[in-house]
């Protein structure tokens, strides 16, 4: 029964959502709303599950004296710091409001750390482009040229250089960039979207019908 009950639940919930998309009336609409509420509760519980799992993995690293145990210690200390301050020293329910201690930590520690992580991308992208972005063949050359046009066309420099080079109206770098984004990019993205959608439909059907069972875990 450990496998049968989840399979039956999955089939009922999955079919309900499919049917209520086309027939949103009672009882399908009511059932879909109820399952959506269940999902929100499970998703909220999953956040805690994830946090507790992070603590367990980090504590194990420290206990086993692994190489990265220092970082695991920082993770645990940061977790408890923000949880304790958020729960007990930030005005209760209004803990996210400007001026609270939780807000201070968010603005002065969390935000700069996240910003630093993502800001590093600019440097690594520049370095990686220099080393790896080569016109080795026709396809790579087309990709390279498209990248040049979009990169320059998405900045005011594209307009400036178009004026300097006296490029005719409609053939400026910004216009070419828009053509690439609105036609070539859209065509490619649509193909990817349709492909993904078909894949999701087939995978969902396999899960609803109980053919695909790997999500249950085990052998």
């Amino acid at each position, binding site marked *: 029964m450990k496998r049968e009950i989840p399979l039956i639940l999955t089939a009922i919930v999955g079919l309900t959502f499919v049917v209520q*998309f086309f027939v949103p009336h009672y009882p399908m*609409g009511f059932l*879909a*709303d109820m399952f*959506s*509420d269940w*999902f*929100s509760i499970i*998703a*909220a519980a*999953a*956040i805690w599950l994830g946090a507790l799992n992070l603590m367990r993995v980090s504590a194990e690293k420290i206990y086993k004296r692994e190489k990265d145990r220092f970082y695991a210690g920082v993770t645990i200390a940061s977790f408890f710091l923000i949880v304790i301050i958020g729960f007990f020293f930030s005005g209760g*329910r*209004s803990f*996210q*409001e*400007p*001026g609270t201690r939780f*807000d201070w930590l*968010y*603005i002065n520690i*969390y*935000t700069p750390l*996240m*910003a630093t*992580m*993502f*800001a590093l991308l*600019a*440097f690594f*992208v*520049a*370095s990686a*482009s*220099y*080393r790896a*972005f*080569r*016109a080795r063949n026709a396809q790579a050359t087309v990709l*390279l040229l498209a*990248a*040049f046009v979009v*990169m*320059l066309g*998405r*900045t*005011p*420099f594209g*307009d400036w250089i178009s004026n300097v080079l006296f490029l005719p109206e409609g053939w400026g770098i*910004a216009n070419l960039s*828009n053509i690439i*984004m*609105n036609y070539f*990019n*859209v065509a490619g*993205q*649509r193909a990817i*979207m349709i492909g993904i959608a078909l894949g999701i439909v087939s995978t969902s059907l396999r899960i609803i019908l109980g053919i695909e069972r790997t999500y249950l875990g085990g052998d």
Partner: protein
Amino acid sequence: MSNGPFGQKLFQALLRIDRRIIFLVIFLALSIPIFLGLRIDITVTQEVRLFYNSVEALSSGSRVLLSFDYDPGSEPELQPMAETGFRHLIKNHIKFIIMGLWPQGPMQANKALTRINEVDEGFLVDNGDTLYFGRDLLVVGPDTIRYGIDFINLGFQAGNELVIQRMGSSIRAAFANDARYGRPIDQFPIMNGLNKLSDFDLVINWSAGYPGTVEWVQFAVDRFHVPCGAGNTAVQAPQVYPYLDTGQLSGLMGGMKGGAEYEQLTGMRAKATMSMVSQTAAHIFVVLFIVIGNLAYFMTRGRKKEGRA
């Protein structure tokens, strides 16, 4: 081009260039324009104009849902859009309801509101005579907005796209209480008559990934027929362009450039406009690096082939 022994050595050296030199050049390209306060003219694209027009088309007193679906990692790109968006809505006397499918989203909204309140010669009014509490009264330029009447923060709700789906039939089922006081949202005048997603005049989504604009289009627009405009990171924007073409998105801002164009249209030049010179300089240097890297690669590759022959 001459490719003698000196040239050959030069190209070999260019191929082995220390990456720290590249880092330094990018750092200087990004930082010098900021310190010099350089400005640059920006051409407005059609997709940003569409977004601007969709807000302008709203009448005074309309109610807009703002979904903040990003975290501080995407702040440089999305926060300027969010701040200009708030200014634009406040200037046009449009009421707004804040929420987030990302846990950090509502805090980013608070941050943007606090900033425009401070920068636009406003101040946080601190007296006990206002409708709820002093900090519920925001002054932005010549306009004053009141919490619960002109704006409200519903906070974060876990559940990704199913939150949108739930709001389609009942907003109160997804957000029973507001985020600031934990009070039932029915106690706030702004929520009068707002029962489901289709009661909003417009949804604006600031998005950096999943859940984000794709989910808002698939559920809010396609299912519940609410118009939706979006501001995305430059990386994500290409993925949602197909929705623009079909009219599923009523406007789109991509990356910092999109934010700068929006600032230009609203006449409120701020952070995105100021950062455009830095971004332009960085793009130019990346292009130059790629050109130099390819030049050095082909020059040395030809010599290697000759050597092998």
